[in-house]
């Protein structure tokens, strides 16, 4: 319990150090970072899930492999894909561009998945 408390305090303190250091950082910048974190984690997770399910269903429909195999292969691949998306999200200067691309491709994949089911 002491260790957990100390760990929490350490984390809080580290955050305060960042605040001390980046007092001149605008709130817009903070929101931008928060949006990128959300997009890199939740957005990428949803996108990869839809893309993986669509691809696995498509190869199963084509008779190339059972759907369980396709789903498993896409799951194994998902961490690498997630990493690539996270790198892109944090590099791309215009966050809207990432958002547009992920939303549009995600919608297309969702429709394909719905049609294939």
């Amino acid at each position, binding site marked *: 319990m002491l260790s957990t408390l100390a760990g929490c305090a*350490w*984390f809080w303190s580290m955050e305060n150090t960042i605040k001390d250091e980046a007092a001149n950082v605008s709130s817009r*910048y903070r929101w931008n970072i928060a949006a990128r974190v959300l997009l890199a984690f939740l957005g990428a997770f949803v996108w990869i899930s839809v893309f993986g399910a669509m691809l696995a269903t498509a190869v199963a429909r084509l008779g190339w492999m059972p759907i*369980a195999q396709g789903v498993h*292969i896409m799951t194994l691949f*998902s961490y690498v894909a997630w*990493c690539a998306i996270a790198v892109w999200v944090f590099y791309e200067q215009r966050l809207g561009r990432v958002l547009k691309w992920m939303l549009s491709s995600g919608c297309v994949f969702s429709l394909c998945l719905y049609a294939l089911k």
Partner: protein
Amino acid sequence: MSNNTGLHGAFRQSMSWLHTWCGLVLSLVLYFIFITGSFGYFNYEIDHWMKPENPSISETASADDMLETGFGYLREEAPAASRYFVTLPVGRGDPGIRVFAQLEEPTDSGAMRLSEQINVKGEATSVARDTGGGNALYRMHYALHYMPYDLAIYIVGVSTLFMFLAIITGIIVHKNIFKDFFTLRLGKGQRSWLDGHNISSVLALPFMLMITYSGLVFYEFEYSPGTLFLGMGVDQNSLDEMFEHLRPGRTAPDPSGNPAPFPDISGPLAQAQAQWPGSEIRFVQVDHPGDAAAVITISRSVEGLGRRGASLKFDGITGAPLSPPQSAPPNAAFSGAVLALHEGRFANTWLRWAYFISGLLGAAMIATGLLLWAKKRRSKLRPTVPAPTSLVFVERTNLGIIVGLPLGVAAYFWANRLLPVDMNNRAEWELHCLFLMWGLSFMHAGARELRRAWREQVALLAVLFLLLPIVNAVTTDAHLVNSLAQGDWVRAGFDLTALVFALIMCLVWRKLAPAPARSVRYPGASEVLGRSNEADA
């Protein structure tokens, strides 16, 4: 938009920002995972040391005799069971025969299973003290402690994902990765910590990549369930279909309800041994014993890069082989190989040491990263300006994390020898000692002047490990001299490793000494490990 954080710069600058934050945010959990996971590579060996009542060299017998003993024990102790399981002592596993029964009705204590370790005479060997052993350390690296299992694996999963991203971005950042590897500038303050961080990272880079990716694969459908749910649905049938795909033939048929004599193991065993000449039998499982639909499964020990050895199934009544074994699909074989690499089950003693050292290098990478981060912030301060409280706190808690956890592990080993053998919840109290010591380390780091606190905690660590073989000798007969005399290199190895670790800590302690002559020899030495922090006192 402010650009002073390095996020929106060139590609490598952005990646440097991402690398720093991914590595830092959950570094406390990652450090814990790496330290406890490294000990996990010697879980059976640590178990052996922590159970001094167990004999140094276990008696052994032929596979046939040990199976007969195991099933005899189960039939006597658990006559009504839906499954019997007997695991033979093969390789570096437990020294005795492990028997397991899935009970049809709960026992008086509510247990639905019987799990015991017996010797070749069929006697339970649970005479050893109640201890968490090496397995408690191993388990904590993925299930943590003092929290529900389901929550813990997700905390570990998110931390592993951060680590994976930190490693990938770390590779992108270091364009001169091999040049950096051969660069170590001692006594250069912040630069020295950066070199140490680079060396510990690059030296074990293949291990780091493998261990983080495979860590994610361990709980693949927990950490990345979206594809499964969207592709196959969320019902139990989908999960069953997936698991049947990954491990074909795993599900046993339902019982017939017609009673039958207990299956004769000897015939199927002879067939299996004839099919696998030179291989060792690892376990034999009997589903629905005493039923006409009984099935015998015989598995050999793992050979090559895999988690499970090949297995054969036989009819429990006729002893005839059932359908030929189905091989796993390539994707399942791949994930099996990845998991086997993570666990290092195939590793011999030397490779196991390489795993252990690589794990500690991973912990060193995290520790140097933490110190470097604090050092960088301090170097930006003007000497006349006092450090912000938050930075001082980070520096002190860094000490609690980096040295405190090994101190806790040392306390865990001491507790194994010093707590009363007949104590209630003894195994749990061993772990309480670990966390109490860790908590005390944080408190000490907060209470003392930082430079002194570092020296004192490192000194304590050295003393605890140095005295561990002595405490062992005072409290048990399984001490170093006896272990060496009996050829028990596992127990002797533990004591000797403790002594070597104590020696290394002595050298670190000496390095931390505020010797003026040392400052002349290495002009930047005062920068190392917060020696410029006297102002904080």
